[in-house]
Protein backbone atom coordinates (compact mmCIF):
# COMPACT_ATOMS: atom_id res chain seq x y z
CA UNK A 1 0.00 0.00 0.00
CA UNK A 2 2.79 2.39 0.81
CA UNK A 3 4.68 3.88 -2.06
CA UNK A 4 8.02 3.22 -0.45
CA UNK A 5 7.05 -0.37 -0.89
CA UNK A 6 8.78 -2.56 1.63
CA UNK A 7 6.02 -4.91 0.55
CA UNK A 8 3.47 -6.91 2.40
CA UNK A 9 3.73 -7.88 6.02
CA UNK A 10 4.54 -11.52 6.03
CA UNK A 11 3.47 -13.79 8.83
CA UNK A 12 6.55 -14.74 10.76
CA UNK A 13 5.09 -18.10 11.61
CA UNK A 14 6.16 -17.95 15.24
CA UNK A 15 3.24 -18.37 17.70
CA UNK A 16 1.79 -15.17 19.14
CA UNK A 17 3.01 -13.01 16.24
CA UNK A 18 -0.35 -11.17 16.30
CA UNK A 19 0.39 -9.66 19.73
CA UNK A 20 0.71 -5.90 19.83
CA UNK A 21 4.23 -4.89 19.07
CA UNK A 22 4.38 -1.91 21.42
CA UNK A 23 2.49 -1.27 24.65
CA UNK A 24 0.01 1.59 24.23
CA UNK A 25 0.06 3.29 27.64
CA UNK A 26 -1.21 6.59 26.21
CA UNK A 27 -4.47 5.01 25.15
CA UNK A 28 -5.20 3.82 28.69
CA UNK A 29 -4.19 7.10 30.30
CA UNK A 30 -6.48 9.06 27.99
CA UNK A 31 -9.37 6.74 28.76
CA UNK A 32 -8.81 7.14 32.51
CA UNK A 33 -8.72 10.93 32.18
CA UNK A 34 -11.92 10.99 30.13
CA UNK A 35 -13.77 8.76 32.58
CA UNK A 36 -12.57 10.97 35.43
CA UNK A 37 -13.81 14.07 33.63
CA UNK A 38 -17.27 12.60 33.20
CA UNK A 39 -17.35 11.34 36.76
CA UNK A 40 -16.68 14.78 38.27
CA UNK A 41 -20.13 16.10 37.48
CA UNK A 42 -21.86 12.90 38.54
CA UNK A 43 -19.95 12.73 41.82
CA UNK A 44 -20.58 16.40 42.55
CA UNK A 45 -24.32 15.93 42.13
CA UNK A 46 -24.31 12.84 44.32
CA UNK A 47 -22.15 14.64 46.88
CA UNK A 48 -24.51 17.59 47.08
CA UNK A 49 -27.49 15.32 47.61
CA UNK A 50 -25.65 13.43 50.33
CA UNK A 51 -24.59 16.66 52.01
CA UNK A 52 -28.16 17.96 51.92
CA UNK A 53 -29.75 14.97 53.55
CA UNK A 54 -28.43 14.89 57.19
CA UNK A 55 -29.09 18.55 58.16
CA UNK A 56 -32.42 18.46 56.33
CA UNK A 57 -33.34 15.26 58.16
CA UNK A 58 -32.45 16.86 61.48
CA UNK A 59 -34.61 19.82 60.56
CA UNK A 60 -37.59 17.63 59.82
CA UNK A 61 -37.00 15.94 63.17
CA UNK A 62 -37.93 19.21 64.85
CA UNK A 63 -40.44 20.67 62.43
CA UNK A 64 -43.09 18.48 60.90
CA UNK A 65 -43.01 18.23 57.13
CA UNK A 66 -46.68 19.18 56.95
CA UNK A 67 -46.11 22.43 58.86
CA UNK A 68 -43.14 23.21 56.67
CA UNK A 69 -44.88 22.68 53.38
CA UNK A 70 -48.25 24.24 54.24
CA UNK A 71 -47.27 26.95 56.72
CA UNK A 72 -47.81 30.50 55.60
CA UNK A 73 -45.40 32.28 57.91
CA UNK A 74 -41.67 32.12 57.34
CA UNK A 75 -39.58 33.62 60.15
CA UNK A 76 -37.02 30.97 61.11
CA UNK A 77 -34.46 33.34 62.56
CA UNK A 78 -36.73 35.28 64.87
CA UNK A 79 -38.54 34.37 68.02
CA UNK A 80 -41.06 32.89 67.98
CA UNK A 81 -39.78 31.05 64.88
CA UNK A 82 -42.21 29.96 62.17
CA UNK A 83 -41.23 27.47 59.52
CA UNK A 84 -43.94 27.76 56.85
CA UNK A 85 -42.10 27.71 53.54
CA UNK A 86 -45.05 28.73 51.33
CA UNK A 87 -44.09 32.43 51.11
CA UNK A 88 -40.70 31.45 49.69
CA UNK A 89 -42.25 28.97 47.27
CA UNK A 90 -44.83 31.43 45.98
CA UNK A 91 -42.13 34.09 45.71
CA UNK A 92 -40.00 31.76 43.63
CA UNK A 93 -42.89 30.67 41.44
CA UNK A 94 -44.11 34.24 40.98
CA UNK A 95 -40.74 35.54 39.81
CA UNK A 96 -40.19 32.47 37.61
CA UNK A 97 -43.61 32.80 36.05
CA UNK A 98 -43.03 36.47 35.20
CA UNK A 99 -39.63 35.55 33.76
CA UNK A 100 -41.21 32.86 31.58
CA UNK A 101 -43.96 35.18 30.38
CA UNK A 102 -41.19 37.43 29.09
CA UNK A 103 -38.67 34.86 27.93
CA UNK A 104 -40.76 32.18 26.21
CA UNK A 105 -42.53 34.39 23.66
CA UNK A 106 -39.50 36.54 22.99
CA UNK A 107 -37.06 33.63 22.99
CA UNK A 108 -39.17 31.47 20.67
CA UNK A 109 -39.93 34.46 18.47
CA UNK A 110 -36.23 35.14 18.11
CA UNK A 111 -35.56 31.45 17.42
CA UNK A 112 -38.24 31.24 14.72
CA UNK A 113 -36.97 34.42 13.12
CA UNK A 114 -33.35 33.29 13.10
CA UNK A 115 -34.11 29.78 11.94
CA UNK A 116 -36.90 30.33 9.42
CA UNK A 117 -36.82 33.93 8.25
CA UNK A 118 -33.34 35.41 8.62
CA UNK A 119 -30.90 35.22 5.76
CA UNK A 120 -27.66 33.41 6.61
CA UNK A 121 -25.72 36.66 7.00
CA UNK A 122 -28.28 38.13 9.36
CA UNK A 123 -28.20 34.98 11.44
CA UNK A 124 -24.41 35.00 11.54
CA UNK A 125 -24.64 38.53 12.91
CA UNK A 126 -27.47 38.07 15.42
CA UNK A 127 -26.70 34.77 17.04
CA UNK A 128 -23.36 35.68 18.63
CA UNK A 129 -24.87 38.90 19.98
CA UNK A 130 -27.71 36.94 21.49
CA UNK A 131 -25.27 34.62 23.13
CA UNK A 132 -23.27 37.52 24.59
CA UNK A 133 -26.44 38.43 26.49
CA UNK A 134 -26.06 35.12 28.31
CA UNK A 135 -22.60 36.11 29.50
CA UNK A 136 -23.62 39.24 31.41
CA UNK A 137 -23.14 38.68 35.15
CA UNK A 138 -26.45 38.38 36.95
CA UNK A 139 -25.44 41.02 39.50
CA UNK A 140 -25.53 43.51 36.63
CA UNK A 141 -29.03 42.42 35.76
CA UNK A 142 -30.00 42.75 39.42
CA UNK A 143 -28.84 46.34 39.65
CA UNK A 144 -30.41 47.10 36.31
CA UNK A 145 -33.74 45.92 37.70
CA UNK A 146 -33.36 47.84 40.95
CA UNK A 147 -31.87 51.08 39.63
CA UNK A 148 -33.30 51.39 36.14
CA UNK A 149 -36.38 49.28 35.59
CA UNK A 150 -38.14 49.79 38.93
CA UNK A 151 -37.84 53.62 38.86
CA UNK A 152 -39.02 53.58 35.25
CA UNK A 153 -42.04 51.44 36.14
CA UNK A 154 -42.82 53.73 39.08
CA UNK A 155 -42.70 56.75 36.75
CA UNK A 156 -44.90 55.37 34.03
CA UNK A 157 -47.30 53.34 36.19
CA UNK A 158 -50.82 54.42 35.27
CA UNK A 159 -52.73 55.15 38.50
CA UNK A 160 -52.50 53.31 41.80
CA UNK A 161 -49.44 52.97 43.89
CA UNK A 162 -47.16 51.39 41.34
CA UNK A 163 -44.43 48.92 42.18
CA UNK A 164 -42.62 49.04 45.50
CA UNK A 165 -38.86 49.65 45.60
CA UNK A 166 -38.37 45.93 45.87
CA UNK A 167 -40.84 44.05 43.69
CA UNK A 168 -41.28 40.74 41.91
CA UNK A 169 -42.22 42.35 38.61
CA UNK A 170 -38.89 44.04 37.90
CA UNK A 171 -36.93 41.05 39.12
CA UNK A 172 -38.98 38.62 37.03
CA UNK A 173 -38.88 40.83 33.95
CA UNK A 174 -35.12 41.21 34.04
CA UNK A 175 -34.70 37.53 34.78
CA UNK A 176 -36.80 36.88 31.67
CA UNK A 177 -34.41 39.02 29.64
CA UNK A 178 -31.56 37.03 31.14
CA UNK A 179 -32.91 33.64 30.00
CA UNK A 180 -33.97 34.74 26.51
CA UNK A 181 -30.59 33.76 25.03
CA UNK A 182 -30.78 30.30 26.59
CA UNK A 183 -34.23 29.66 25.17
CA UNK A 184 -33.63 31.38 21.83
CA UNK A 185 -30.26 29.86 21.11
CA UNK A 186 -31.12 26.28 22.04
CA UNK A 187 -34.52 26.39 20.34
CA UNK A 188 -32.89 27.80 17.24
CA UNK A 189 -30.42 24.91 17.24
CA UNK A 190 -33.31 22.46 17.51
CA UNK A 191 -35.25 24.09 14.65
CA UNK A 192 -32.15 24.35 12.51
CA UNK A 193 -31.60 20.63 12.92
CA UNK A 194 -34.96 19.87 11.27
CA UNK A 195 -34.10 18.61 7.77
CA UNK A 196 -34.75 20.98 4.89
CA UNK A 197 -36.56 18.17 3.08
CA UNK A 198 -39.49 18.73 5.40
CA UNK A 199 -39.54 22.46 4.72
CA UNK A 200 -39.38 21.86 0.97
CA UNK A 201 -42.25 19.40 1.23
CA UNK A 202 -44.34 21.90 3.15
CA UNK A 203 -43.55 24.80 0.83
CA UNK A 204 -44.38 22.66 -2.20
CA UNK A 205 -47.88 22.14 -0.75
CA UNK A 206 -48.47 25.88 -0.71
CA UNK A 207 -47.52 26.74 2.88
CA UNK A 208 -46.54 30.21 3.95
CA UNK A 209 -43.35 30.64 5.95
CA UNK A 210 -45.37 30.97 9.14
CA UNK A 211 -47.21 27.73 8.41
CA UNK A 212 -43.97 25.92 7.73
CA UNK A 213 -42.55 27.23 11.01
CA UNK A 214 -45.56 26.51 13.20
CA UNK A 215 -46.94 23.33 11.65
CA UNK A 216 -43.84 21.50 10.48
CA UNK A 217 -40.63 22.81 12.01
CA UNK A 218 -41.95 23.60 15.48
CA UNK A 219 -43.54 20.18 16.13
CA UNK A 220 -40.49 18.41 14.72
CA UNK A 221 -38.19 20.44 16.97
CA UNK A 222 -40.46 20.21 19.99
CA UNK A 223 -38.23 18.08 22.18
CA UNK A 224 -35.31 20.48 21.73
CA UNK A 225 -37.55 23.47 22.33
CA UNK A 226 -38.97 22.02 25.53
CA UNK A 227 -35.46 21.18 26.67
CA UNK A 228 -34.49 24.80 26.05
CA UNK A 229 -37.44 26.07 28.07
CA UNK A 230 -36.75 23.63 30.89
CA UNK A 231 -33.17 24.79 31.04
CA UNK A 232 -34.45 28.37 31.12
CA UNK A 233 -36.84 27.55 33.95
CA UNK A 234 -34.07 25.81 35.87
CA UNK A 235 -31.90 28.89 35.53
CA UNK A 236 -34.80 31.08 36.65
CA UNK A 237 -35.62 28.97 39.71
CA UNK A 238 -31.98 28.75 40.67
CA UNK A 239 -31.18 32.40 39.96
CA UNK A 240 -30.22 34.22 43.15
CA UNK A 241 -28.51 37.53 42.57
CA UNK A 242 -31.26 39.28 40.62
CA UNK A 243 -33.95 38.39 43.14
CA UNK A 244 -31.77 39.11 46.15
CA UNK A 245 -31.10 42.60 44.84
CA UNK A 246 -34.37 43.54 43.14
CA UNK A 247 -37.13 41.52 44.83
CA UNK A 248 -36.14 42.24 48.40
CA UNK A 249 -35.55 40.04 51.44
CA UNK A 250 -38.92 39.94 53.09
CA UNK A 251 -40.86 36.67 52.94
CA UNK A 252 -44.27 37.69 51.70
CA UNK A 253 -47.14 35.37 50.83
CA UNK A 254 -48.68 37.47 48.11
CA UNK A 255 -49.73 37.16 44.52
CA UNK A 256 -49.24 40.84 43.79
CA UNK A 257 -46.16 41.21 41.57
CA UNK A 258 -45.80 44.84 42.61
CA UNK A 259 -44.82 43.82 46.13
CA UNK A 260 -41.42 42.71 47.29
CA UNK A 261 -41.03 39.02 48.11
CA UNK A 262 -38.24 36.65 49.00
CA UNK A 263 -37.48 33.58 46.93
CA UNK A 264 -36.04 30.32 48.16
CA UNK A 265 -32.64 31.08 46.68
CA UNK A 266 -32.60 34.60 48.08
CA UNK A 267 -33.32 33.19 51.53
CA UNK A 268 -30.51 30.63 51.23
CA UNK A 269 -28.10 33.36 50.16
CA UNK A 270 -29.16 35.73 52.93
CA UNK A 271 -29.04 33.06 55.63
CA UNK A 272 -25.86 31.54 54.25
CA UNK A 273 -23.82 34.74 54.50
CA UNK A 274 -25.18 35.39 58.02
CA UNK A 275 -23.39 34.00 61.07
CA UNK A 276 -25.66 31.10 61.90
CA UNK A 277 -23.90 28.57 64.10
CA UNK A 278 -23.85 25.08 62.65
CA UNK A 279 -26.24 22.61 64.21
CA UNK A 280 -28.88 25.22 65.08
CA UNK A 281 -32.33 24.97 63.62
CA UNK A 282 -31.70 28.20 61.70
CA UNK A 283 -28.70 26.64 60.02
CA UNK A 284 -30.67 23.53 59.16
CA UNK A 285 -33.42 25.55 57.42
CA UNK A 286 -30.92 26.34 54.68
CA UNK A 287 -30.66 22.65 53.90
CA UNK A 288 -34.39 22.06 54.16
CA UNK A 289 -35.10 24.84 51.67
CA UNK A 290 -32.25 23.63 49.48
CA UNK A 291 -33.67 20.10 49.41
CA UNK A 292 -37.09 21.42 48.45
CA UNK A 293 -35.53 23.44 45.63
CA UNK A 294 -33.72 20.34 44.44
CA UNK A 295 -36.89 18.25 44.46
CA UNK A 296 -38.85 20.95 42.62
CA UNK A 297 -36.30 21.13 39.81
CA UNK A 298 -36.09 17.36 39.62
CA UNK A 299 -39.86 16.94 39.36
CA UNK A 300 -40.04 19.62 36.70
CA UNK A 301 -37.38 17.88 34.65
CA UNK A 302 -39.08 14.50 34.92
CA UNK A 303 -42.46 15.93 33.96
CA UNK A 304 -41.04 17.72 30.95
CA UNK A 305 -39.24 14.59 29.75
CA UNK A 306 -42.58 12.78 29.94
CA UNK A 307 -44.35 15.53 28.05
CA UNK A 308 -41.76 15.59 25.33
CA UNK A 309 -41.89 11.82 24.86
CA UNK A 310 -45.60 12.11 24.40
CA UNK A 311 -45.82 14.98 21.96
CA UNK A 312 -42.62 15.05 20.00
CA UNK A 313 -42.48 14.12 16.33
CA UNK A 314 -39.42 12.08 15.60
CA UNK A 315 -38.17 12.89 12.14
CA UNK A 316 -35.52 10.24 11.76
Amino acid at each position, binding site marked *: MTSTGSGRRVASGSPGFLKRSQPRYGEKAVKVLLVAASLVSVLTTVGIVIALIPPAAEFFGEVSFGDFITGTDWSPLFKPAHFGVLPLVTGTLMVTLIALLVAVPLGLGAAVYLSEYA*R*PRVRAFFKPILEVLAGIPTVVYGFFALQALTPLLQDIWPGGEGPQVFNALSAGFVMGIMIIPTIASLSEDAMNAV*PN*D*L*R*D*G*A*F*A*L*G*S*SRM*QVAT*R*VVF*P*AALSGIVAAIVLGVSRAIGETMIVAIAAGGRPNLSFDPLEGMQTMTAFIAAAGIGDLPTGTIGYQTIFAVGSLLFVMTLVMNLVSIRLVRRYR*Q*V*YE
Partner: protein
Amino acid sequence: MTTEPSRRIQRLRRRALRSAQTAAVASPSNAPDAPDAPDSTTAPRVSFRDAPPLTTPVFEVGSLSVFYGDHEAVRDVNMTIGDRQITAMIGPSGCGKSTMIRCFNRMNDLIPTARVVGKIRYHGENLYGKEVDPIEVRRRIGMVFQKPNPFPKSIYDNIAYGPRVGSFKGNLDDLVEETLTRAALWDEVKDKLKTSALALSGGQQQRLCIARTIAVKPEVILMDEPCSALDPIATAKIEDLMEHLAQEFTIVVVTHNMQQAARVSHRTAFFTSDVDVKGERHGRLVEYDETERIFSNPSDQRTEDYISGRFG
Protein backbone atom coordinates in the same frame (compact mmCIF):
# COMPACT_ATOMS: atom_id res chain seq x y z
CA MET B 1 -23.18 13.80 -39.35
CA THR B 2 -26.14 13.18 -37.07
CA THR B 3 -28.11 11.55 -39.87
CA GLU B 4 -25.52 8.83 -40.31
CA PRO B 5 -24.53 7.59 -36.87
CA SER B 6 -21.56 5.30 -36.86
CA ARG B 7 -22.13 1.57 -36.72
CA ARG B 8 -20.63 1.49 -33.26
CA ILE B 9 -23.12 4.02 -31.98
CA GLN B 10 -25.96 2.11 -33.56
CA ARG B 11 -24.81 -1.02 -31.86
CA LEU B 12 -24.59 0.74 -28.52
CA ARG B 13 -28.01 2.24 -28.97
CA ARG B 14 -29.52 -1.10 -29.73
CA ARG B 15 -27.94 -2.47 -26.60
CA ALA B 16 -29.36 0.37 -24.49
CA LEU B 17 -32.80 -0.13 -25.96
CA ARG B 18 -32.61 -3.83 -25.33
CA SER B 19 -31.87 -3.29 -21.69
CA ALA B 20 -34.72 -0.80 -21.52
CA GLN B 21 -36.98 -3.47 -22.98
CA THR B 22 -35.83 -6.11 -20.57
CA ALA B 23 -36.41 -3.81 -17.67
CA ALA B 24 -39.83 -2.93 -19.02
CA VAL B 25 -40.73 -6.58 -19.23
CA ALA B 26 -39.38 -7.31 -15.78
CA SER B 27 -41.44 -4.59 -14.16
CA PRO B 28 -44.91 -5.67 -13.09
CA SER B 29 -46.34 -2.48 -14.57
CA ASN B 30 -45.86 -3.74 -18.07
CA ALA B 31 -46.22 -7.40 -17.31
CA PRO B 32 -49.70 -7.79 -18.82
CA ASP B 33 -48.40 -6.53 -22.18
CA ALA B 34 -45.54 -8.95 -22.23
CA PRO B 35 -45.87 -12.52 -23.41
CA ASP B 36 -45.95 -15.00 -20.58
CA ALA B 37 -42.93 -16.89 -21.77
CA PRO B 38 -40.91 -14.58 -23.98
CA ASP B 39 -39.19 -16.40 -26.78
CA SER B 40 -35.51 -15.68 -26.51
CA THR B 41 -35.12 -15.28 -30.26
CA THR B 42 -37.85 -12.66 -30.66
CA ALA B 43 -37.20 -10.05 -28.00
CA PRO B 44 -40.32 -8.04 -27.16
CA ARG B 45 -40.37 -4.55 -28.62
CA VAL B 46 -40.49 -1.63 -26.30
CA SER B 47 -43.78 0.15 -26.77
CA PHE B 48 -43.37 3.87 -26.55
CA ARG B 49 -46.38 5.89 -25.62
CA ASP B 50 -48.02 8.08 -28.21
CA ALA B 51 -47.48 11.69 -27.33
CA PRO B 52 -50.64 13.78 -27.15
CA PRO B 53 -50.43 17.00 -29.16
CA LEU B 54 -49.10 20.20 -27.62
CA THR B 55 -52.19 22.17 -28.59
CA THR B 56 -52.97 23.21 -25.01
CA PRO B 57 -49.62 24.11 -23.52
CA VAL B 58 -49.35 24.28 -19.74
CA PHE B 59 -45.88 25.78 -19.60
CA GLU B 60 -44.15 27.80 -22.28
CA VAL B 61 -40.53 28.37 -21.43
CA GLY B 62 -38.67 31.08 -23.34
CA SER B 63 -34.93 31.91 -23.14
CA LEU B 64 -34.85 30.77 -19.55
CA SER B 65 -31.61 31.02 -17.57
CA VAL B 66 -31.10 30.31 -13.89
CA PHE B 67 -28.26 31.82 -11.90
CA TYR B 68 -26.89 30.80 -8.52
CA GLY B 69 -25.05 33.96 -7.55
CA ASP B 70 -22.90 34.71 -10.59
CA HIS B 71 -22.95 31.19 -11.90
CA GLU B 72 -25.36 30.49 -14.72
CA ALA B 73 -26.53 26.98 -13.91
CA VAL B 74 -29.01 26.69 -16.75
CA ARG B 75 -28.73 28.69 -19.97
CA ASP B 76 -31.29 29.64 -22.56
CA VAL B 77 -33.93 26.92 -22.34
CA ASN B 78 -36.93 26.95 -24.65
CA MET B 79 -39.62 24.32 -24.40
CA THR B 80 -43.37 23.81 -24.26
CA ILE B 81 -44.96 21.36 -21.87
CA GLY B 82 -48.30 19.91 -22.78
CA ASP B 83 -51.45 19.21 -20.83
CA ARG B 84 -52.12 15.81 -19.21
CA GLN B 85 -49.02 14.05 -20.36
CA ILE B 86 -45.74 13.02 -18.84
CA THR B 87 -42.70 15.02 -19.80
CA ALA B 88 -39.37 13.52 -18.77
CA MET B 89 -36.18 15.47 -18.29
CA ILE B 90 -33.06 13.36 -18.58
CA GLY B 91 -29.36 14.08 -18.66
CA PRO B 92 -26.11 13.55 -16.80
CA SER B 93 -25.51 14.84 -13.27
CA GLY B 94 -25.05 18.59 -13.02
CA CYS B 95 -26.87 19.34 -16.26
CA GLY B 96 -29.39 21.56 -14.52
CA LYS B 97 -32.48 19.40 -14.86
CA SER B 98 -33.32 19.61 -11.15
CA THR B 99 -32.69 23.36 -11.20
CA MET B 100 -34.96 23.55 -14.21
CA ILE B 101 -37.86 21.63 -12.66
CA ARG B 102 -37.71 23.77 -9.52
CA CYS B 103 -38.43 26.82 -11.68
CA PHE B 104 -41.88 25.54 -12.54
CA ASN B 105 -43.27 26.02 -9.02
CA ARG B 106 -40.87 28.72 -7.89
CA MET B 107 -39.07 26.49 -5.42
CA ASN B 108 -35.90 28.30 -6.46
CA ASP B 109 -37.28 31.35 -4.65
CA LEU B 110 -36.31 29.61 -1.43
CA ILE B 111 -32.62 29.60 -2.34
CA PRO B 112 -31.40 33.10 -1.46
CA THR B 113 -28.84 33.33 -4.26
CA ALA B 114 -30.98 31.87 -7.05
CA ARG B 115 -32.20 34.17 -9.85
CA VAL B 116 -34.38 33.30 -12.81
CA VAL B 117 -34.07 35.24 -16.07
CA GLY B 118 -36.34 34.75 -19.06
CA LYS B 119 -39.94 33.69 -19.30
CA ILE B 120 -42.05 30.86 -18.03
CA ARG B 121 -45.68 31.19 -18.94
CA TYR B 122 -48.21 29.06 -17.12
CA HIS B 123 -51.43 29.02 -19.16
CA GLY B 124 -50.26 32.27 -20.67
CA GLU B 125 -49.60 33.95 -17.31
CA ASN B 126 -46.05 35.03 -16.48
CA LEU B 127 -45.07 32.75 -13.58
CA TYR B 128 -42.46 35.24 -12.39
CA GLY B 129 -44.70 38.30 -12.71
CA LYS B 130 -44.59 40.84 -9.90
CA GLU B 131 -48.13 40.22 -8.73
CA VAL B 132 -47.79 36.43 -8.72
CA ASP B 133 -47.97 34.79 -5.29
CA PRO B 134 -45.60 31.81 -5.08
CA ILE B 135 -47.87 30.15 -2.52
CA GLU B 136 -50.75 30.27 -4.98
CA VAL B 137 -48.42 28.88 -7.65
CA ARG B 138 -47.40 25.93 -5.47
CA ARG B 139 -51.01 25.02 -4.71
CA ARG B 140 -51.55 24.54 -8.43
CA ILE B 141 -48.17 23.07 -9.20
CA GLY B 142 -47.21 20.44 -6.66
CA MET B 143 -43.88 18.72 -6.23
CA VAL B 144 -42.52 15.33 -5.20
CA PHE B 145 -38.89 15.09 -4.18
CA GLN B 146 -36.00 12.73 -4.63
CA LYS B 147 -35.98 11.39 -1.09
CA PRO B 148 -39.40 10.54 0.35
CA ASN B 149 -40.05 13.35 2.84
CA PRO B 150 -43.26 12.61 4.71
CA PHE B 151 -43.85 14.85 7.69
CA PRO B 152 -43.18 13.17 11.04
CA LYS B 153 -46.93 13.06 11.59
CA SER B 154 -49.59 10.41 11.11
CA ILE B 155 -50.49 9.18 7.63
CA TYR B 156 -53.80 10.99 7.97
CA ASP B 157 -52.16 14.27 8.97
CA ASN B 158 -49.72 14.05 6.09
CA ILE B 159 -52.58 13.95 3.60
CA ALA B 160 -54.59 16.53 5.53
CA TYR B 161 -51.67 18.96 5.82
CA GLY B 162 -52.06 20.62 2.41
CA PRO B 163 -55.84 20.99 2.58
CA ARG B 164 -55.53 22.38 6.12
CA VAL B 165 -52.98 25.07 5.27
CA GLY B 166 -55.08 25.87 2.22
CA SER B 167 -58.08 26.37 4.56
CA PHE B 168 -60.03 23.51 3.01
CA LYS B 169 -63.73 23.53 3.79
CA GLY B 170 -65.37 20.16 3.63
CA ASN B 171 -65.08 16.69 5.00
CA LEU B 172 -61.42 15.98 5.61
CA ASP B 173 -62.01 12.27 6.29
CA ASP B 174 -63.61 11.84 2.89
CA LEU B 175 -60.84 13.78 1.21
CA VAL B 176 -58.16 11.64 2.85
CA GLU B 177 -59.86 8.42 1.76
CA GLU B 178 -60.47 9.69 -1.77
CA THR B 179 -56.88 10.89 -2.11
CA LEU B 180 -55.32 7.70 -0.80
CA THR B 181 -57.55 5.67 -3.09
CA ARG B 182 -56.47 7.69 -6.10
CA ALA B 183 -52.85 7.16 -5.08
CA ALA B 184 -53.50 3.40 -4.81
CA LEU B 185 -52.43 3.43 -1.19
CA TRP B 186 -55.78 3.18 0.61
CA ASP B 187 -55.89 -0.60 0.94
CA GLU B 188 -52.39 -0.67 2.37
CA VAL B 189 -52.89 2.02 5.00
CA LYS B 190 -56.60 2.25 5.78
CA ASP B 191 -56.17 0.43 9.10
CA LYS B 192 -53.29 2.57 10.30
CA LEU B 193 -54.18 6.11 9.35
CA LYS B 194 -53.24 7.34 12.81
CA THR B 195 -49.79 5.75 12.86
CA SER B 196 -46.69 7.63 11.91
CA ALA B 197 -45.96 7.97 8.21
CA LEU B 198 -42.35 7.14 8.99
CA ALA B 199 -43.37 3.56 9.80
CA LEU B 200 -44.13 3.00 6.11
CA SER B 201 -41.61 1.53 3.69
CA GLY B 202 -39.66 3.87 1.42
CA GLY B 203 -41.87 3.16 -1.58
CA GLN B 204 -45.03 3.63 0.45
CA GLN B 205 -43.64 6.87 1.84
CA GLN B 206 -43.02 8.15 -1.66
CA ARG B 207 -46.53 7.21 -2.75
CA LEU B 208 -47.80 8.96 0.36
CA CYS B 209 -45.88 12.06 -0.74
CA ILE B 210 -47.54 11.82 -4.16
CA ALA B 211 -50.91 11.41 -2.45
CA ARG B 212 -50.15 14.39 -0.22
CA THR B 213 -49.46 16.40 -3.35
CA ILE B 214 -52.69 15.46 -5.12
CA ALA B 215 -54.71 16.14 -1.96
CA VAL B 216 -54.46 19.87 -2.66
CA LYS B 217 -55.86 19.21 -6.15
CA PRO B 218 -53.08 20.73 -8.22
CA GLU B 219 -53.01 20.76 -12.00
CA VAL B 220 -49.36 19.88 -12.38
CA ILE B 221 -47.16 17.44 -10.45
CA LEU B 222 -43.44 17.96 -10.66
CA MET B 223 -41.32 14.97 -9.70
CA ASP B 224 -37.63 15.37 -9.06
CA GLU B 225 -36.10 11.89 -9.41
CA PRO B 226 -38.98 10.34 -7.48
CA CYS B 227 -37.62 6.79 -7.67
CA SER B 228 -33.92 7.27 -7.19
CA ALA B 229 -34.08 6.17 -3.54
CA LEU B 230 -36.34 3.18 -4.22
CA ASP B 231 -35.93 -0.45 -5.18
CA PRO B 232 -37.20 -1.74 -8.56
CA ILE B 233 -40.53 -3.04 -7.27
CA ALA B 234 -41.35 0.22 -5.49
CA THR B 235 -40.22 2.04 -8.63
CA ALA B 236 -42.58 -0.01 -10.78
CA LYS B 237 -45.47 0.88 -8.48
CA ILE B 238 -44.68 4.57 -8.74
CA GLU B 239 -44.44 4.32 -12.51
CA ASP B 240 -47.85 2.63 -12.59
CA LEU B 241 -49.21 5.42 -10.48
CA MET B 242 -47.68 8.06 -12.75
CA GLU B 243 -49.28 6.52 -15.83
CA HIS B 244 -52.59 6.45 -14.05
CA LEU B 245 -52.30 10.04 -12.79
CA ALA B 246 -51.31 11.35 -16.21
CA GLN B 247 -54.96 10.99 -17.26
CA GLU B 248 -55.80 13.82 -14.89
CA PHE B 249 -52.58 15.67 -14.19
CA THR B 250 -49.75 17.17 -16.14
CA ILE B 251 -46.58 15.49 -14.92
CA VAL B 252 -43.00 16.64 -15.33
CA VAL B 253 -40.43 14.15 -14.11
CA VAL B 254 -36.69 14.48 -13.75
CA THR B 255 -35.00 11.11 -13.90
CA HIS B 256 -31.55 9.66 -13.98
CA ASN B 257 -33.01 6.49 -15.30
CA MET B 258 -33.28 6.50 -19.08
CA GLN B 259 -35.34 3.35 -19.09
CA GLN B 260 -37.82 5.02 -16.82
CA ALA B 261 -38.10 7.96 -19.18
CA ALA B 262 -38.58 5.53 -22.08
CA ARG B 263 -41.22 3.59 -20.20
CA VAL B 264 -43.43 6.29 -18.77
CA SER B 265 -43.01 9.55 -20.63
CA HIS B 266 -44.72 10.92 -23.70
CA ARG B 267 -42.07 13.51 -24.36
CA THR B 268 -38.45 13.68 -23.30
CA ALA B 269 -36.11 16.61 -22.88
CA PHE B 270 -32.41 15.84 -22.91
CA PHE B 271 -30.17 18.22 -20.96
CA THR B 272 -26.43 18.27 -20.79
CA SER B 273 -23.80 20.62 -19.50
CA ASP B 274 -21.70 22.69 -21.87
CA VAL B 275 -18.40 24.30 -21.11
CA ASP B 276 -18.26 27.80 -22.57
CA VAL B 277 -15.24 29.82 -23.72
CA LYS B 278 -14.58 31.02 -20.15
CA GLY B 279 -14.43 27.44 -18.95
CA GLU B 280 -17.71 27.63 -17.00
CA ARG B 281 -20.30 24.89 -17.02
CA HIS B 282 -23.89 25.60 -17.99
CA GLY B 283 -26.84 23.26 -18.23
CA ARG B 284 -28.36 23.33 -21.72
CA LEU B 285 -31.43 21.80 -23.27
CA VAL B 286 -30.09 19.77 -26.18
CA GLU B 287 -33.13 18.15 -27.61
CA TYR B 288 -36.80 17.96 -26.76
CA ASP B 289 -39.12 15.69 -28.66
CA GLU B 290 -41.52 12.82 -28.46
CA THR B 291 -39.99 10.10 -26.33
CA GLU B 292 -40.10 7.55 -29.12
CA ARG B 293 -38.09 9.82 -31.36
CA ILE B 294 -35.53 10.69 -28.68
CA PHE B 295 -34.88 7.03 -28.04
CA SER B 296 -35.08 5.69 -31.57
CA ASN B 297 -33.93 8.47 -33.84
CA PRO B 298 -32.52 11.47 -31.98
CA SER B 299 -31.43 14.38 -34.10
CA ASP B 300 -28.49 15.46 -31.96
CA GLN B 301 -25.27 13.51 -31.66
CA ARG B 302 -25.02 14.24 -27.91
CA THR B 303 -28.46 12.74 -27.30
CA GLU B 304 -27.45 9.75 -29.33
CA ASP B 305 -24.28 9.34 -27.28
CA TYR B 306 -26.11 9.69 -23.98
CA ILE B 307 -28.93 7.26 -24.63
CA SER B 308 -26.54 4.74 -26.10
CA GLY B 309 -24.57 4.84 -22.89
CA ARG B 310 -21.43 6.53 -24.18
CA PHE B 311 -21.43 9.01 -21.30
CA GLY B 312 -23.46 10.13 -18.32
